[in-house]
């Protein structure tokens, strides 16, 4: 649990503003879902791992005698998918985006229990152009934020699932292995020797090599002609996407291990890192909408994680909030107070931030200070804090003129 202080909020709003602008430019529309949802929404799809579900904040509502529980939204995508199914399923295509908080218990004290996400979801678009679209949209947001040392990693859920199938595990073992992989434990897979040495070689190659272009995938395809049909079609999908990305000059690294946390992905999975820290991720989840009793609608999306981005976001000086104008009353008499409020209002109407002060404290960090003395003939003293100069002013018009000229 943490407070966001004024400087944090400047960063937060900057991220949000850039994200919103980019999304709108790509034709996405903003939505917002409730903080409180029914728990079954998240258990029903079977798409959050049991360990994630054991960390949600769920409780009985005031009318919860039937045992139906509500939950503080633990994930951004599932509620938006629900929103789409409930309200927009008539639309063939829906490009939606959101800025939202999600809640999960965190016992180590290192992270927040409330985290913020900027996410976008594309319902109805079949591969591969929409996959590339969301990757490039996310990439544009990150680029416009001015983050440096960015890495894009690609993996493919279909590829990983096809690979797992080759191990011919029992359903229970396969579920356990999937959970381990989703928690980032890939050694489990390398340790579980398959019966087929060809598969071990394939796993070793995919986990050991990190390709930087679609050529790598052509090589994989050529080296393992005996791979299963599922594997081949997933590989083909990934080849199509990476070829498009190559042509568009988008650089990435193919890292099959770059997938964890969510189970709802069916196709491409990607994550963005800034200086080694994960700042966002997404992918294709074609089964989610049908699993939630919606129609057979393919979908993909991503989310950027606001909290780690705030840590690495550079904040230019001028963005820290423009230094404004301080309107000071020499005394707090009804006349002077009235003049001060009127002056400040005129300044604000003219587009200048104006702050009031009657305490007589030392001023700092302002562009101008207007001292209201109320004494004729020049009831105002105008101080230029940058130049360090003072002058009298006789009227509001004169103040506005000087201030506007800078």
């Amino acid at each position: 649990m943490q407070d966001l202080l004024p400087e944090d909020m400047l960063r937060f709003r900057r991220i949000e503003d850039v994200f919103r602008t980019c999304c709108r430019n790509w034709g996405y529309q903003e939505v917002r879902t409730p903080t409180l949802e029914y728990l079954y929404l998240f258990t029903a799809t079977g798409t959050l791992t049991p360990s994630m579900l054991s960390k949600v904040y769920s409780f009985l509502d005031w009318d919860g005698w039937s045992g139906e529980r509500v939950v503080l939204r633990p994930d951004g995508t599932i509620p938006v998918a629900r929103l789409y199914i409930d309200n927009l399923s008539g639309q063939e295509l829906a490009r939606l985006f959101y800025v939202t908080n999600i809640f999960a218990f965190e016992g180590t004290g290192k992270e927040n229990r409330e985290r913020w996400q900027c996410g976008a979801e594309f319902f109805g678009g079949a591969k591969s152009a929409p996959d590339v679209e969301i990757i490039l949209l996310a990439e544009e947001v990150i680029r416009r934020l001015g983050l440096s040392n960015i890495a894009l990693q690609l993996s493919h859920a279909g590829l990983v699932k096809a690979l797992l199938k080759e191990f011919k595990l029992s359903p229970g073992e396969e579920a356990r292995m999937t959970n381990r992989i989703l928690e980032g434990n890939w050694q489990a897979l390398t340790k579980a020797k398959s019966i087929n040495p060809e598969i071990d070689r394939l796993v070793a190659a995919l986990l050991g090599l990190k390709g930087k272009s679609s050529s790598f995938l052509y090589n994989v395809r050529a080296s393992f002609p005996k791979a299963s049909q599922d594997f081949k079609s997933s590989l083909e999908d990934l080849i199509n996407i990476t070829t498009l990305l190559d042509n568009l000059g988008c650089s990435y690294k193919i890292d099959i291990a770059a997938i964890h946390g969510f189970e709802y992905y069916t196709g491409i999975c990607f994550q963005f890192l800034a200086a080694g820290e994960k700042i966002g991720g997404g992918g294709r989840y074609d089964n989610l909408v049908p699993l939630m009793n919606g129609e057979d609608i393919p979908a993909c999306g991503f989310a950027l994680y606001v909290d780690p981005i705030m840590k690495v976001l550079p904040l230019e000086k001028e963005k820290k909030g423009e230094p404004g104008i301080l309107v000071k009353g020499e005394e707090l008499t009804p006349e002077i107070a009235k003049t001060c409020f009127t002056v400040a209002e005129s300044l604000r109407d003219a587009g200048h931030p104006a702050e009031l002060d009657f305490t007589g404290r030392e001023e700092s960090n302002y562009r101008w200070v207007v001292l209201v003395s109320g004494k004729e003939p020049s009831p105002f003293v105008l101080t230029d804090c940058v130049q360090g100069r003072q002058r009298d002013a006789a009227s509001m018009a004169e103040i506005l003129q000087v201030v506007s000229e800078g």
Partner: protein
Amino acid sequence: MKDYQDGCIKLALPKGRFLSPTANLLAEIDLGFQDYSDKTKQYRLRSVRFPSLSAKILQEKDISIQVAVGNYDLGICGLDWIEEFLVKYPVGALVKISSLNYGEGSIHVVASAETEIASLNELSARRNDYRIVSEYPNLAEAFALNLRMRRFRIFPVWGAAEAYPPENADLAVLWGKSGAHIATQGLIPLKRLLPVTAFLIANRESLENKDLSQILMCFNSKLTAEPQASIKNELDISEELKGPRPLWQAKEINLALPDGHQQAPTAQFLKQAGLAPQGYSEEVSNRRPSADLDWLGIKVIRPQDMPLQVANVNFDLAITGEDWLLEHLYRFPSSPVKKLFALGFGTVKIVAAVSQEMPVSDIDELRSLVQSSKFAPLKVASEYINIADKYLRDNHINPYKLIPTWGASEAFLPEDADMLIDNVQTGKTLKQHKLKIIDVLFRSSACLIANKHSLAASDKKEKMEFLTQKLRAGLS
């Protein structure tokens, strides 16, 4: 920060099922608690061998929590209650030290022999909304999540979980001696979750900072290299054992009757009303007594669980206490459960009591005392969480902490709680424990409750009226 230098070591010992085997163990390793036996009336014990060692006898359910919060350095209780705690609070302060190698039975997930659920795979594949009833709501939830059940609801109960399937629950998570034992209750064990053995547990901070070595050594002398209670698969026999199926069929009106203390006076009352269900007054508890009325279904469950069950129309009518009705209504203000009339027996007072040492005589003085921060936060032990919560809020006691208990709250005072909110009949027990009543919240007696929708439903209305008339006649 706690003082680890004082050297006092506190041990929490179980009541009930593990009392005598634990007493035997303690005698064997010579911890010096001579008074720890079935007959003891006191809660507090001092070791005659280790002057720094003291113990308190608590409900097993309370022990894991009390050790975790640090009121006790060590404790002994069943693995079921430890896991019930740990599954919800895995990063908590509770450490399992060693199995004590005694105990009986296991915690099982069971279904009714009458339903079609025969294996776990079916549970995760189906899209049903499963109702799971259990005294172990956390274990039940973890089970459902791990199995990736798509939709489920957990109904925590105080007891008698075996009575719920199939009409009132699809699954139950409960203790059973063996697969055969479960089958005799008309249930099929689907999965064994854990064996119920006694464990020695410790508070993590105590273990890390405090010298408990003398006591641990005593235990070690007895505990040879961890012969984990062998997990043999008791469930294989379930194939052959279908058990005697209870002849159950849906009834038009369902009535719940209480077990425990309330059972005898309720049986007496029903007799007066000319409605004595067969099998209810007997010593051997029958969970499904039968009535002369062929449209009436009767089940015997815990009075604490009735309001929730009536709210869900698992029962149309029930005989419970006004205290438990109020406890339910404070939690669920729009619940469709309604009191029809009080029955006049089983009367208790719900009181707030504190130690006789505490310099207060009423709740207003207590408020001032808490405000002066001498007892802040005020620790309040109660089995009526919602009643206690509302009482403390209404009286502007701030800050306070609620300690949920499973009866016998008086054992918590004065060391582990400052106040209790509990029911008393005469107040004698409180006096024995040097406690005094500072407020009477209300009086409660047995009452008949009903589901509002059942009262109004056209297909039930007449029979509901008939039955309530008959019961009302028993009042005079």
